[in-house]
């Protein structure tokens, strides 16, 4: 060959040598030399035939050949590995099923919780450009930074701020829909005119709340339109009577739209001009839309300036008050975010445990396949190829597990949705999207690699001789004792962490449940009724109805006592009916920071709730309009404002009404008002017969008979007085208490489920490894027995081996827990995150479960017949 061609040819050959790297190493190992030879031959032939240009052309063609064939070769190896992996799994169904189940549980739980987190916390709210929606609160001087806004302040913010394309206000109220069938109690949202523009959602049909001549408009929720009006397309313009006022239907919102409470059924125009309202009456919620290009910080600065101006102009109402500006999403999901992230961490732990389990199974199996691997290695399979094969198997397992897990996550999510308390926001928005699928797939893939890596690493470095000899003695060096020990340790540690988390949540839940709410929730029935303004326009009419109704209910058989209150305890409503008071004849009263919750009650209410009367007397029918004004205070107020004094006989002036001072005639026991986890706040009971200004009252009936039957009789009795009386929210008092605990019950339940899952997985893991170790040592055990070891000694030997790892895991878990429990602090009540008892109980329980898992194989070992054991050439499976 021409020496010049020879040079080029050599160059090309070297180039081809590096191109070969595109092929899998195993293929290269097998065919690389021949391919190079092939190429050399080709070059030579081409050089002879077509000279330099032919050589260069040859080079290009070969480049194309590599690009075309290399992916195919990779796929081919993958295909072979997969086929082999499938065959291996098919041949050991027990192993495959166990591993797939463990992975499916781990991946499924992760997938479900991920979808919750994604749908609730990550996805934008379902409004156009939702990230520009903000909420404005007032910040009160005592550090409550999410206080409602008073209408005139809202009007001033709306007029003065330039940062927003719009600010709207709303408040939720009850509305009674009358006519065309049963009177119905609805939740309404009273909104300022710009509300729908700011939110960015228009009615699906109709123009909305546009101010035109004629009756004021209302907008219906899709649900109400469907339920009450059968989805009538001619609904627009139809006249409605709500609370005895006439309205026309102005629109129907799209299905799924809600803002604020999910149960709002009707949006109505705010029936007053915000600018002409008391500046101290703070009850509005707001939503504001940032102008494009304006940052929240700029808007906040502007609002701060406006607030400072208001404080200067209206010191009586606004001194010390500021503004809080929050993203709407923070407002909606802020509270649940922490619980969800704790859950996400917890399912992550469960997945890790599942990984460790599968890794253990694979390790044990890899030991059984030692012979096979050794033969393959001896036949020339490279370490890389074997690792690749092992990883293909574990990834295949994980992908199957992921598929099953995906199905499980559907079921789990439906269950979660059914169990979740109404307080969990955006649950209806949780659905499947590309992210959830990608997440599940990625988790499955990662799980496969992680759980396959350790066994693959172990197995790729076998001792050839030992493997081929299949000897007993060499087995132990192969199985990777320390590796499996480490897996047990981490499994035990992780499940201890979950158990600890669940334990702390359970303890705080029990603590709350045992807490005395201040009344006896058992054996009492509650319902709420509205006295429509049309028929109960005057105080006299309302007082008469209350008195009459209570008398008739009290006379029913099975009813022990009955009474009414304006707002039952534990029905939410923070800051609801909160006012100031001053103590007559005391100098410090003028400061006005004596705050209390006002509740209007009838005679018999305290008795029906079993709230003890500590001093003085209860209200009677004589505490009516015209009699001398009286109040009952609760123990919390008495303790705080009358320390070491007798409050009975003292006089109070209440800020909400300019009436004569009222005499304290009694002291009642304190009650947890807002929620069970809030300390009782000072409370004042006003006799409703004396001040019958409340339209919506709740009736409490303590009954001895069957609650459901009583409910019907009571309803009938009340309807007998007033046929059109809206009665709703009928439920046992105990139900309300349970409801107020529902969110905690939910997180406790989920955490406990996860902890149980973790425990089961860890127990299976420990059991599997210990059984395996027992199998390995059976020969040695036989010798021991033959030499006179008693069964109990054998038992202890095995248990000791297992428990060493378990105890190490428990110690490690406790250490990690000390660092991690802090994240739970916000979710706990009445329990320290470092609670000694919970730590102890979790450790003992984990040790117990590990012990059980060790005992089964230990007993088997102890019962082993020495002759069998000695004769036994251990072949697992």
């Amino acid at each position, binding site marked *: 060959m021409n020496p010049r061609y020879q040079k080029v040819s050599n160059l090309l050959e070297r180039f081809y040598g590096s191109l070969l790297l595109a092929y899998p190493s195993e293929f290269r190992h097998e065919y690389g030399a021949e391919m190079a030879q092939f190429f050399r031959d080709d070059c030579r032939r081409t050089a002879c035939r077509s000279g330099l240009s032919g050589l260069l052309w040859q080079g290009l063609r*070969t480049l194309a050949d590599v690009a075309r064939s290399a992916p195919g070769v990779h796929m*081919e190896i993958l295909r072979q590995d997969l086929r082999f992996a499938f065959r291996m799994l098919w041949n050991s169904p027990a192993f495959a099923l166990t591993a797939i189940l463990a992975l499916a549980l781990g991946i499924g739980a992760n997938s479900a919780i991920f979808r919750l987190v994604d749908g609730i916390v990550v996805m934008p709210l379902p409004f156009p450009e939702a990230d520009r929606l903000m909420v404005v609160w007032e910040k009160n001087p005592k550090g409550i930074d999410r206080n409602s806004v008073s209408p005139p302040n809202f009007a001033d913010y709306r007029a003065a701020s330039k940062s927003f394309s719009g600010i709207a206000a709303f408040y939720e109220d009850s509305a009674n829909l009358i006519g065309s069938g049963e009177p119905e109690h609805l939740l309404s949202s009273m909104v300022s005119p710009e509300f729908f523009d700011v939110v960015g959602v228009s009615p699906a049909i109709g123009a909305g709340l546009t101010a035109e001549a004629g009756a004021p408009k209302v907008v219906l929720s899709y649900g109400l339109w469907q339920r009450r009006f059968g989805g009538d397309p001619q609904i627009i313009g139809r006249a409605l009577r709500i609370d005895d006022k006439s309205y026309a239907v102005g629109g129907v919102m799209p299905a799924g739209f809600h803002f604020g409470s999910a149960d709002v059924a009707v949006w109505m125009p705010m029936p007053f001009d915000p600018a002409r309202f008391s500046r101290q009456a703070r009850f509005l919620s707001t939503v504001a839309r940032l102008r494009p290009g304006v940052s929240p910080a700029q808007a906040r600065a502007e609002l701060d300036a406006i607030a400072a101006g208001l404080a200067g102009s209206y010191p009586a109402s606004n001194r010390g008050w500021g503004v809080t500006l929050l993203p709407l999403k923070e407002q909606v999901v802020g509270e649940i975010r922490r619980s969800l992230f704790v859950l996400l961490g917890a399912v992550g732990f469960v997945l890790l445990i599942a990984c460790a389990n599968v890794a253990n199974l694979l390790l044990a199996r890899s030991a059984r396949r030692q012979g096979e691997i050794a033969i393959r290695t001896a036949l020339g399979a490279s370490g890389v190829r074997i690792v690749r094969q092992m990883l293909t198997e574990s990834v295949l397992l994980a992908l199957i597990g992921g598929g099953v897990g995906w199905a499980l996550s559907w079921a789990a999510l439906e269950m979660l949705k059914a169990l979740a308390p109404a307080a969990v926001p955006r649950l209806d928005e949780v659905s499947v999207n590309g992210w959830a699928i990608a997440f599940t797939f990625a988790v499955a893939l990662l799980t496969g690699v992680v759980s396959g890596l350790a066994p693959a690493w172990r197995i790729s470095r076998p001792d050839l001789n030992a493997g081929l000899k299949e000897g007993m003695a060499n087995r132990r060096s192969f199985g990777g004792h320390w590796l499996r020990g480490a897996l047990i340790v981490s499994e035990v540690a992780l499940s201890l962490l979950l158990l600890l988390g669940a334990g702390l949540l359970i303890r705080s839940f029990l603590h709350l449940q045992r807490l005395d709410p201040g009344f006896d929730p058992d054996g009492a029935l509650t319902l709420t009724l509205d006295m429509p303004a049309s028929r109960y326009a005057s105080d006299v009419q309302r007082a008469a109805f209350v008195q009459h109704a209570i008398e008739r209910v009290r006379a029913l058989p099975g009813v022990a006592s009955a009474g009414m209150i304006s707002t039952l305890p534990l029905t939410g409503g923070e800051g609801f009916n909160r006012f100031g008071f001053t103590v007559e004849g005391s100098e410090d009263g003028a400061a006005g920071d004596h705050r209390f919750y006002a509740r209007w009650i009838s005679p018999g209410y305290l008795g029906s709730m079993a709230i003890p009367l500590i001093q003085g007397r209860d209200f009677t029918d004589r505490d009516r309009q015209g009699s001398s004004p009286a109040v009952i205070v609760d123990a919390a107020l008495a303790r705080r404002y009358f320390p070491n004094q007798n409050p009975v006989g003292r006089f109070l002036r209440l800020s909400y009404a300019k009436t004569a001072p009222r005499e304290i005639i009694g002291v009642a026991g304190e009650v947890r008002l807002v929620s069970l986890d809030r300390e009782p706040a000072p409370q004042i009971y006003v006799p409703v017969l004396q001040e019958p200004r409340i339209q919506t009252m709740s009736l409490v009936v303590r009954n001895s008979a069957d609650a459901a039957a009583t409910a019907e009789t009571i309803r009938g009795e009340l309807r007998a007085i007033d046929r059109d009386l809206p009665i709703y929210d009928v439920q046992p008092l105990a139900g309300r208490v349970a409801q107020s605990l529902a969110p905690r019950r939910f997180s406790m339940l989920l955490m406990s489920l996860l902890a149980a899952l973790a425990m089961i997985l860890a127990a299976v893991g420990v059991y599997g490894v210990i059984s395996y170790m027992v199998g390995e040592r059976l020969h040695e055990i036989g010798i021991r027995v033959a030499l006179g070891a008693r069964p109990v000694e054998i038992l202890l030997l095995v248990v000791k081996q297992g428990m060493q790892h378990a105890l190490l895991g428990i110690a490690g878990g406790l250490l990690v827990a000390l660092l991690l429990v802090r994240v739970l602090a916000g979710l706990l009540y009445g329990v320290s995150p470092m609670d000694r008892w919970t730590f102890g109980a979790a450790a003992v329980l984990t040790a117990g479960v590990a012990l059980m898992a060790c005992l089964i194989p230990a007993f088997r070992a102890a019962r082993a017949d020495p002759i069998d054991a000695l004769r036994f050439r251990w072949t697992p499976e």
Partner: protein
Amino acid sequence: MLALADEERHGYGIKREVEFRTGGIVKLGPGTLYGTLQKMLADEWIEECGERPDPEAADVRRRYYRLTRIGRRLAAAEASRLENLVRVARSKDLLANRGTTS
């Protein structure tokens, strides 16, 4: 596969046979060839029949391949399938033109 039907060949030999049979139209690159060989080996259509010196180039040892029984039957089945196809095509006069020109 046809290249191996009559005798055992090594990789480069297969390439030359294919090139010869197709009149130089099909030029197998090394990657394509060995990729296919590996797949056919895995499926047991062909087998290795030892490594020995190439009689044409005495300095290199080459691996030789031959059809297995399965491979031979497969090749025969494929050939007869194609033959049937051609027969059908011919009966519909699809190949008439080529038949006369070649």
